[in-house]
């Protein structure tokens, strides 16, 4: 039963893909149609993504698929542009090349109004919460509802209290953001991110700087919200343990490319020396301990002569 349903859905989507694509020319149509068939259940498809910021290449041909209903972890060392990737998906940055399809809409090409409509269906949890500091917890969560819906205040109140209950902070609704601990701030921000019942939530380093208890709370929240609300979640992180614990699929990024991808177990067995170094946190390996320099003896001898 469910299989046949899926088939119908799949054909429907394939049709749509082809209809959109035909205007782009014959070759492209075949390419994109193939892609659509291949990744039937992915919500986000990133193809051949190139992005450079002030001559520094951040992405150099990245392909990523994010499965519907799953939790996808994107990991890599600091400075590999993990946050940049989220901003590209959210349309805050424009790639130099490549396509980012979110629910079959090419984000970089979307006009402003359509982009804003799409963003209403995306939730994002920022690294430090990014709560609006001039309003309290309640108003922060009510903010997107008040901006985008014409619901009555009583209905908004019910919704806000529901979201707060989901993150366990119903009692904190009158606090100001400055009175919250880091972990609580992130939970409030999470409640805000899901206020409009989005199709997906992006988490930017949700575990960084959290004590073990808050980490545990967040891990549980992300998993339970994802399953209960039927969300698609993307977690950008370099916390291996927590991410591996909840992610259904993991991409490892380094040097502007996808180094490895697979389930947590598959990555653990990965042949890639780089992946092994990253996952086990070894000091030396493909990523050297030393910043590139000439030999130590040369440097020491030379410094005596110069100064």
């Amino acid at each position: 039963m469910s299989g046949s349903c899926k088939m119908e859905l799949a054909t429907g989507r394939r049709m749509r893909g082809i209809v959109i694509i035909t205007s782009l020319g014959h070759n492209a149509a075949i390419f994109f149609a193939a892609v659509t068939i291949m990744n039937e259940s992915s919500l986000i498809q990133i193809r051949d993504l190139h992005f450079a910021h002030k001559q520094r290449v951040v992405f150099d041909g990245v392909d990523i698929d994010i499965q519907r209903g799953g939790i996808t972890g994107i990991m890599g060392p600091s400075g590999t542009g993990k946050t940049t990737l989220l901003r590209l998906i959210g349309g805050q940055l424009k790639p130099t090349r490549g396509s980012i399809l979110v629910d079959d809409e090419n984000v970089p090409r979307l006009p402003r109004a359509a982009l804003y409509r799409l963003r209403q269906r995306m939730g994002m949890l920022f690294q430090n919460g990014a709560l609006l500091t001039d309003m309290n917890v309640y108003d922060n969560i009510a903010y997107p509802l008040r901006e985008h819906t014409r619901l009555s205040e009583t209905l908004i109140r019910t919704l806000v209290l529901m979201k707060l209950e989901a993150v366990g902070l119903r009692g904190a609704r009158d606090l100001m953001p400055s009175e919250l601990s880091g972990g609580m701030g992130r939970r409030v921000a999470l409640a805000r991110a899901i206020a409009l019942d989005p199709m997906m939530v992006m988490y930017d380093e949700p575990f960084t700087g959290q004590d073990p208890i808050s980490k545990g709370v967040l891990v549980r929240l992300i998993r339970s919200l994802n399953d209960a609300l039927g969300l698609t979640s993307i977690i950008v992180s370099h916390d291996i343990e927590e991410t591996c614990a909840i992610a259904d699929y993991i991409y490892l990024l380094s040097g502007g490319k996808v180094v490895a991808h697979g389930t947590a177990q598959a990555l653990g067995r990965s042949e890639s020396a780089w992946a092994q170094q990253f996952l086990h946190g070894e000091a030396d390996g493909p990523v050297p301990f030393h910043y590139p320099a000439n030999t130590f003896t040369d440097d020491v001898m030379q410094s005596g002569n110069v100064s």
Partner: protein
Amino acid sequence: MLGALQLLGQKGLDFFQRLGRGNILLLHIVEGLPSLLPRLPLLIRQTYMVGVLSLLIIVVSGLFVGMVLGLQGYNTLVDFGAAESLGTMVALSLVRELGPVVTALLFAGRAGSALTAEIGLMKATEQLSAMEMMAVDPVRRVLAPRFLAGVISMPLLAAIFSAIGVLGGWFVGVGLLGVDDGAYWMQMQDHVDVYDDIMNGVIKSLVFGVVVTWIAVFEGYDAVPTSEGVSRATTRTVVHAALAVLGLDFILTALMFGD
């Protein structure tokens, strides 16, 4: 030599780039102004932050500037036997020049720097980014109300400054130095023109209000999102706003009062 030229070119390009970004932002803000109508509380709140909180410094400075004008003016005019013209001198200096200019400078220091710091911090703590991701345009919700509040507040503050200054001059001239009360006001009324002087003063302060708030809002929005970047942007707001006000004042004065 070539290095110096390169530096000059770099600075020039940088300047024009920033000017361009500033202009685009201003356009974007003006575009967003109509959307403020149904959100009056936002505007009122910002008018409070920008205008009401600047009130004290404006009143106190206005009073002292007026008193100093009274004292200096009296000492100068009494030598020519024209102490009765004190009112004229105080009023014209305040209404044409000191009112708009000093208010704009104080406004840049008090409200402008606060605006830049606030917006810069909102950027540094990703609040602006978060708004964008919530499909809310921060230019419309954050910058536009602040800009409009500044533009509204500035002429009102300048008028308060001038009025208090005239009273301060009256207090010193008439109260302490014994200039005739009737002469103070009559001479003033005879020589200060509503259109030539008062209206032009209001226009000046309106222009300054636009420029100072624009610079403040732009610097905050364009700040490097770190604590250092925000503090630099705040300093830049005060410096650039002061320079812009004084430069524009010369141009406006030449246009308005140059015969």
